[in-house]
């Protein structure tokens, strides 16, 4: 009978054990060192720097000058455009998030069946979400053209005169909400995966109890999907607060600041007007707002998010 050679085990005393243990720790840090260096240099460092810059006036040319809470005071008391950008972003979020979640779930429900060629449809619905942001924005600028755009041409066929979507302060934001919905593909994929995970026996049990399709949706599908819906809701809210590319390409914040989003105003303040300190303060306010919203959602999730094995609160 042969025996496998055993790895050497260091039990030669306490000193040797701690030496071995320290070496294992160093080894671990060395493994993660490349990532850690990048994280400190490109994430943590700028993160902390922006915090201190938010209390300073700096235009990249002059040395930073300490101004304390001046930027934060200005934002809320002496900058109408800041308030406008915040309100615009909230307006967009309030309508965009529910709409895209509902559309994505609806399409996922439609595509959650085993039919020949269903993969083609899943691919087609997913494709818009992987299109480059700038290309999408340029495409939609044409679609929303007042005289010759596809959208107004289409609704003109049923006798409706379309508005000047991107040239009207009233319709510019609805245009962005419509446009942003077409990127539902990535949410749809998550929902499809979630739907695959709903146990079939729950549906069978519901059918035995005489549940209709609507009953099954409300009482089986959505509760079982609630963790996925919760996750997508948080991520979509975070993303919608940071909308930038479409506004930068399509309207540059116009007409008349109707689509002046928060990040677009932050970008202008930092890179066009060289108000680095003010832009840093804006970034920190956004961070705190998103953090607060996320924490509130986490707290509220106990009421409606159902994890398998738990009872609903």
């Amino acid at each position: 009978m042969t025996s496998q050679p055993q790895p050497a085990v260091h039990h030669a005393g306490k000193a040797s054990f701690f030496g071995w243990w320290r070496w294992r720790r160093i080894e671990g840090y060395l493994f993660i060192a490349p990532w850690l260096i990048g994280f400190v240099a490109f994430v943590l460092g700028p993160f902390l720097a922006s915090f201190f810059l938010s209390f300073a006036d700096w235009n990249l040319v002059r040395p930073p000058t300490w101004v304390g809470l001046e930027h934060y005071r200005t934002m809320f008391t002496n900058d109408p455009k800041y308030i406008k950008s915040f309100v615009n972003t909230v307006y967009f979020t309030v309508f965009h998030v529910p709409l895209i979640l509902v559309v994505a779930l609806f399409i996922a429900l439609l595509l959650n069946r085993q039919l020949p060629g269903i993969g083609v449809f899943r691919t087609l619905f997913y494709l818009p979400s992987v299109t480059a942001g700038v290309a999408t924005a340029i495409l939609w600028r044409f679609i929303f053209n007042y005289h010759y755009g596809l959208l107004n041409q289409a609704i003109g066929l049923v006798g409706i005169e379309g508005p000047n979507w991107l040239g009207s302060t009233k319709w510019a934001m609805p245009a962005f909400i419509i446009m942003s919905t077409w990127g539902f593909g990535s949410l749809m994929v998550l929902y499809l995966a979630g739907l695959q995970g709903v146990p079939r026996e729950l549906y069978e049990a519901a059918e035995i109890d005489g549940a209709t399709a609507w009953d099954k949706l409300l009482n089986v599908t959505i509760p079982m999907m609630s963790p996925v819906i919760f996750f997508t809701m948080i991520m979509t809210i975070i993303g919608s607060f940071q909308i930038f590319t479409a506004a930068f390409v399509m309207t540059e914040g116009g007409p008349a600041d109707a689509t002046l989003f928060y990040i677009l105003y932050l970008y202008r303040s930092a890179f066009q007007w060289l108000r680095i300190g003010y832009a840093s303060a804006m970034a920190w306010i956004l961070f705190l707002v998103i953090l607060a919203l996320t924490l509130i959602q986490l707290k509220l999730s106990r009421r409606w998010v159902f994890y398998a094995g738990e009872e609903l609160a």
Partner: protein
Amino acid sequence: MDSTTKKITRRTFLRTSAFAGTAGVLAACAVPVAAPAGDGAAAPAMEDVTLRMVTHYGSPVRREFTSRVKDIFEATHPGVTVEVEVAPDIDVRWQTEVAAKTLPVMLWDANLFCEMAAQGVFLPLDDRLPMQQPPVDMDDYNVPTGAECMVWHEGQQIAMPWINGAPLLYYNVDMFEEAGIERPSDDWTWDDFVDVTKELTRDTDGDGEIDQWGYMQSTRWDEHFAQWIFANGGEIVTEDRLHTPLDTPEAAGAIEFLYDLRFTHKVWPLAEQMEALQALGIGSLFNGGRVAMTYGGTGGIGGFNRSVTDFTYDILHFPKSPATGERALWTFMQNFAGPIWSEHPDLDADLAIALGGPSSQRWAGRTKIQVPIYTPAVEEDYATKPPENIRVVPEMFAEPGVQHLPIFNGKTEWLQTVFGGELTKAFIGEASLADAITSAVAEGDRILARQ
């Protein structure tokens, strides 16, 4: 297993890979250190040097300009290579280059240059000027009033002036002739202007829709309003740079004149009309033969000479204000400057001087990419046909009261907010003119108060 054979365990392999990876990352971040003196290697007789130059204009004629200067400079400076980069996004990138101290020789506009000059960012040129061949005499350079900070700082010359841009009124000669309208005289007035534009605004194909307009211009920048406001006796910012006086009768009167062109006389296409035509592929309504007159700049002449082939164009003096009986001229200057931290200060200084030197000025004049600042180049090279009435440009500059657009800290935010933001609301029909002027003044003053 043979005890003399060492088996490489997985842990050993991973440990070695981790060390190698970390060492590679640290090596990539290492700063190269110059070899110490006396290491035995013979120094080359002439060290090869690469200079960088950036411009944000990429039109064919401007590329030709920079290419020409590059070739001549390299021919006269053996061992020197000039890398030219056309970067339309340099307005966003230059801050990073300043912070990293990699800023190259660059073409500058007024809005940021003077503030940076005050921080000592630019390379003095005085020592190199006398050494140029041919010699450079700065007395031949017509630096406009108000733009001195773009050339000198604390007695030192820190940039080489390049061009004086100014607004111009272009018109479609064929449209005028078809309408039976004679070329307006040099002394025409704002009222004459309205009459002419009304006659030229028409439905040419009989479908009941206006498809030819008398005039158009942008409302995005201060320069688009300044021409009219200055002519009417108004100002766009006070001398102390603390107030935006667009609500004075003179300034508001000029703005109202423009507003009426669009909404009362309807000789200037609405924003959605312009957008619709652009959606049809008519990029420039003037070049596309849809607009009889357009506000442009002196830098457009070279381009129009090349691109306008379907009709004859020419240029006009701006009409005179009824309030003052005068017209005004503002200019904006561009210059070339190198950074104070240059590794090759003499060469970078020579390059900046070459870019704005007499030879370059004459070439710019001949091609009409802009109005040279070098006076002999304006008189002998620029003032040549086409267009037929090119004399308008030197006449404009010869009139009294030519001033540079105001230069002050924070101007970019101010002009984008006041003109491109608040005033434009009225011109796209989203606010009344009175409200737009009021908010433009309020926002402008708020921004100025911070400087």
